[in-house]
Each structure stands twice: as C-alpha cells, then as structure tokens.
C-alpha cells in the first residue's frame, strides 16, 4: 500500500468517501516528501476537528420529513465513522487534560529539582499539547477504532516530543 493510502486512513470515513479517490489521484502513487506527509497529517487533524469540513462531508439532509426521520434513526447505526461526542464526553476530556497537565507539571518540577535540564525543557514544552493529545480518545477520537486512536496519538506525541527536544537544543 502506498504511503498516501496509509495516511489517508487517518481521515474520517465520511471525508474519505467524499474526497478519498480524488485526493489519491492528486497526490499520486510515488513516494511522499516529508513536507507532504506533515501536510497530510495536519489535514487529517483539521478534517476531524473542523465542524465546517465535517458538515460538507456529511450526506445532505433530505427535504422529505419521513426520510429525514429515517436518516436520524439510522444515523447511529450507519455513521460510525463521523465525529460524535456529547457535552459529557467534552467534560471528561477536559478533566483528563487537566489531570495530565498537573501530572506533567509535577514531572517538570521533579526534573528541575534533580537538575535534569533536558528533561525539564522537553516536559515544559510538552505539558499542554501533550495533555491535549492524551485527552483526545475521550472526546475527539471517541468511537474510532483503537488502532486509529493509537496511530494518531502515537504520531502526534512523537512529533511533539521531537519538536520539544529540538527546541531544548537551541
């Protein structure tokens, strides 16, 4: 499987159904440059997080009332690939983010106390974005397969870690 096809799997199912074919035709089957890969991954984050993009990839609501009711009834069964989270999920996500920030802050303080300067610098950079990523399974990625969640989270954490480490060198 080409790299573009693998990265396309990071996008929501509804997005893939709407744009997937033409997206692959645009990217081509050749090897991807690092810049293209980063752009595709950031596009996937945008496709998950933007309500506007999700709106355009969602099937249009039919005018007929009966069809509309049927669609609403079937939505829960048929649209597993689309993003759905409740207010409760958002609150749980926020609580996880808060706890993770506190935990990472405690690690920063421990590193500082022990004089581990690199760990201190890396963890300071990572505290907020890392917590955000750790909270994602509870709201933004809810309903996705564990594999998609693991790939997206591990990828994001690796990128954040690399950026924080590089920043600590300067």
């Amino acid at each position, binding site marked *: 499987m080409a790299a*573009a096809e693998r990265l396309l799997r990071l996008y929501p199912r509804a*997005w893939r159904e709407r*744009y997937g*074919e*033409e*997206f*692959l*035709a*645009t*990217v*081509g089957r050749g090897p991807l440059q690092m*810049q*293209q890969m*980063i*752009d*595709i*991954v*950031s*596009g*996937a984050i*945008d*496709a998950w997080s*933007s309500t*506007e*993009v999700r*709106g*355009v*990839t969602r099937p249009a609501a039919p005018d007929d009332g009966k069809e509309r009711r049927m669609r609403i009834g079937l939505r829960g069964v048929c649209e597993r690939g689309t993003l759905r989270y409740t207010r409760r999920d958002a609150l749980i996500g926020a609580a996880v983010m808060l706890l993770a920030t506190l935990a990472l802050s405690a690690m920063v303080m421990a590193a500082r106390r022990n004089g581990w300067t690199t760990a201190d610098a890396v963890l300071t950079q990572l505290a907020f974005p890392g917590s955000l990523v750790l909270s994602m399974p509870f709201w933004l990625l809810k309903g996705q397969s564990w594999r998609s969640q693991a790939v997206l989270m591990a990828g994001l954490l690796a990128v954040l870690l690399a950026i924080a480490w590089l920043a600590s060198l300067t």
Partner: protein
Amino acid sequence: MPRRDDVLAGLGRFSEPALLVLISLADGPKHGYAMTQDIEAVAGQKLGPGTLYGAIARLEARRWIEPLPPQERRRPYRITAAGQRVLRHRLAGLQAVARVGRARLAEG
C-alpha cells in the same frame, strides 16, 4: 487584523490557499492536481494535499465552488457566481492595499 469586509479572512489559515484556489478556478473548472500545478505556476506556491482539500472543503461548504461529475478518479470543481463575487471583492481589496504600498514606496 483582518478587515471586516474580507469574507475570506473567516477561513483562518485557509484564507490564502482558498484565495489561490478561487483564482485558479476563475478561468475554468479544474481538478485537484491541475489546481496545484496552476497555483504553483501562478503564485510559486506548492499547496500540500491536506491544505488543498481543507480549502476545497471550506469553499464548497460556503458554496463558492461546486463539484462537477468525476472524470475517472478525478473530480473537477468550478467557481460559482457567489465565489466570483467574493474573489472580485478580495482582489479589489488587495489592489487598494498594493496601490497604497506602491505610493508609500514612491514617497520614501
């Protein structure tokens, strides 16, 4: 700070790619690959696929562009009348800014 009459500014970081897509479609329908080639030739910017389709989805949501029936695996898009109005308005704004910039350079 974005001007209040710049409706493209509402697209945030996608405002510039969206402007380039509208400019690319102004002379006729194009599919994604043709758009990236055209934009690179016209503006010297190579839009990444994630950025391109982020802009396309937003323009489609606002009905400033519309998809045409797919040709093989590629789907062309065309600019709508509303999209043309937005583009005309934005280009006029940019022209006014450029005029001021040129005048100030001449003064200096």
